[in-house]
């Protein structure tokens, strides 16, 4: 790792030496030549970002202020698209559901990977095997994982209700009830994604100096006290970064309601991203879809800004 970084950095450092020296155009050429591969990689990344991230974002902003049939030039309509989506009865439900999903995902999806990481870190045996098992769901394509849960949640033959029946508990409606549908989606989302979070936490835990735990143990601290007084303070920044990433990610929830519930029952799982999809692709109203997308982007921008500041702080640490 160190060697690779050194190899990459050295030519950059050389390239940074005053290339505009009038008597040294050859040096500039050599510097560029030496960095050619790096520039090539950079260009490829820039093109990808420009095409698949920045351009769509700019187009989204433009489209949100236009009525566009993609045949004639778009007609500027001011804030009409925003007024339309705000007046939509599903708009309020979508934001409330999105907020509830993010909240529930924080309670469940944020805590579970951390606890798992702490447990895995404390284990003496089968560590590698368990890490693999925990990471396994991440390797499944999201659509496959979601459809797997569709069967788990089946009220009749589904795995979950069979399990409840085995311990003589009444079956649950899972996706079919307004009170359990959203939390069922959170469970799917958590299961699909906890592997990555767990491994990141685990890496952070392993970077904590062992002597801190030894000192705590000598002072008579039990497991919980060690976690509270050593683990959490030492991983504070990672926890904060992951919290922000979690919020940004969960607010864009789409595939779970799209594949499992179609937004139902009674709009209980309509999210902002799902409503955006409905507008753009089912109603053929890209203006409305883009307006919703822009609103979501502004909200996420706040969290992303905080994330950038926190991660910069961590990098400087």
């Amino acid at each position, binding site marked *: 790792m160190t060697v690779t970084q050194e190899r990459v950095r050295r030519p950059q450092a050389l390239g940074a030496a005053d290339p505009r020296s009038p008597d040294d155009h050859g040096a500039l050429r050599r510097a560029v030549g030496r960095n050619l591969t790096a520039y090539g990689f950079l260009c490829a990344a820039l093109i990808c970002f420009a*095409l*698949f*991230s920045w*351009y*769509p974002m700019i*187009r*989204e902003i433009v*489209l949100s202020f236009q009525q566009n*049939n*993609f*045949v*004639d030039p778009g007609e500027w309509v001011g804030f009409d698209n925003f007024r*339309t989506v705000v*007046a939509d*009865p599903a708009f309020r439900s979508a934001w409330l559901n999105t907020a509830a999903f993010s909240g529930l995902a924080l309670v469940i*999806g944020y805590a579970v*990977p951390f606890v798992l990481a702490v447990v895995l870190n404390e284990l003496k045996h089968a560590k590698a095997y368990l890490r693999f098992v925990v990471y396994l769901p991440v390797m499944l394509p*999201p659509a496959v994982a979601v459809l797997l849960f569709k069967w788990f949640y089946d*009220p*009749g*033959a589904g795995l979950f209700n069979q399990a409840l029946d085995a311990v003589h508990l009444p*079956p649950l*409606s899972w*996706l*079919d*009830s*307004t009170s359990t549908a959203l939390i069922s989606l959170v469970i799917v989302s*958590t299961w*699909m*994604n*906890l592997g*990555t*979070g767990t491994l990141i936490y685990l890496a952070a835990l392993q970077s904590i100096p062992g002597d801190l735990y030894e000192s705590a143990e000598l002072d008579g601290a039990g497991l919980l006290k060690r976690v509270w007084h050593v683990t959490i303070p030492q991983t504070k920044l990672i926890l904060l970064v*992951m919290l922000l*990433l*979690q919020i*940004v*990610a969960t607010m*864009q*929830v*789409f*595939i779970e309601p799209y594949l499992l*519930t*179609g*937004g*139902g*029952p*009674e*709009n209980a799982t309509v999210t902002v*991203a799902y409503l*955006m*999809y*409905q507008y*753009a*692709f*089912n*109603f*053929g109203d*890209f203006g409305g879809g883009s307006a919703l*997308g822009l609103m979501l982007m502004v909200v996420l921008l706040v969290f992303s800004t905080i994330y950038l500041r926190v991660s910069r702080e961590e990098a400087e640490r």
Partner: protein
Amino acid sequence: MTTTRRGLSLLLVAGLGLVAASCGSGEDKTPAADGPVTITVGCEPPKSNPKERAAWEEDVAVFQKAHPNITVEGKDAFPCINPDTFQAKLAGGTQEDLFYVYYTDVRKIIDKKQAADISQYVGSVGKLKDLRQDVMSVFKANDNTDKTYGLPRNNYNMGLVYNRKLFTQAGLDPANPPKTWDEVREAAKKIAALGPGYVGFGEYSAGNTGGWHFAASLYARGGSMVSDDGKTAAFNNDEGKAVLENLKRMRWDDNSMGSKQLLQWEDLMRMMGGGKLGMMIGAPDVVQSVNNDFKGKFEDYGVTAVPESDGKFSLSGGDGYMFNPKASPEKIKAGLLWLEFHELTPGQGQFNYARSKEQGRPVGLPIPDLYGNSAPGNEINALRKQYATVPVDNFTPYVSAQGNITNKLEPPKAQELYAVLDVAMSAVLTRKDADIDKLLSDAEGKANKILAKNT
């Protein structure tokens, strides 16, 4: 927890879509244009359907021989259209000259001016005057100008699809399917009683399909989704209540609809193909899909009219072709020749039943019904009977009821209204205490807002 996959999901759906968004009879030798013209045509059967593909290629060869100036370039896809990609293809310049479309989307496309006006050319289609007027009205503008924007390929209306095998198992007579909703309830109870996993009657309630079937049931009871002027909702009445009350009773009092709800199109197809679903609202094309893609067998299914729809309406459905708004007059003229040959001529193209039988493809379904009782319609029916490979008697109750049922088109802003009514449908099927009056009243308020914007 990880952002990468979520980001990818959203990017795939919105980002990529937005990127793309930015950017005569076969024997007639009359050329369509002075010079050579190439037309791209959607819905060419994919290579994974080798028989259909071979038939298409044979038809293209025959057509091109008769019209040496015209080259037909098929664009294969399965399914024929993914509405999600429509806008992107149009904006990205990859939309076919003749693009395939479902009836549900036609009104939206005309309103948004996303298809070419073919009024001044369509008169060249010889069979135009024989096509059912209600079918042709699907492709006409809704502004009293009588402009035409496309031609049909398929047409059907809703009925009741039932599993004849399960009827027999449950002690019911498959030759006498239910004619009233009370009979449907009784049959559904008997089928559900066959054992765990058996569902008497299945219904959609998610992904806008619930609202679609609400409209189908409402029409069959004589109701309407919107007022005659299309400005207000018209479903909050006795007919609308009857639709939801009937479902509620079957779901909760009879327990004949299974416990799994929020079903969408593919769910019911799979259940029907799996042989554990007794009945559902659907057209004969359901049997085709179940046979072709969901492991069902033609002989196990039958179709009848929606109960109690005699003298009333049936929601019509189907598909057809529209023209790219940027297509030149030459392409439009050539495209019309192709459509007349391939989609509208008895004994040719899709109606070449002799070839279909030879290839071992199903013949005998009572669809497409493009011509009603006119001469071409009777000719098609005669060919269908002559070359039938599926048990046509299984569709007799559906066919014989057609004479006294009027086809009715989907409402304006169909997808938006269906999304609103999904809520009511999912409520009665997932909540025992659902308040039908309140659900319909809420839906009416929402629908009125949507329709007010439309007008």
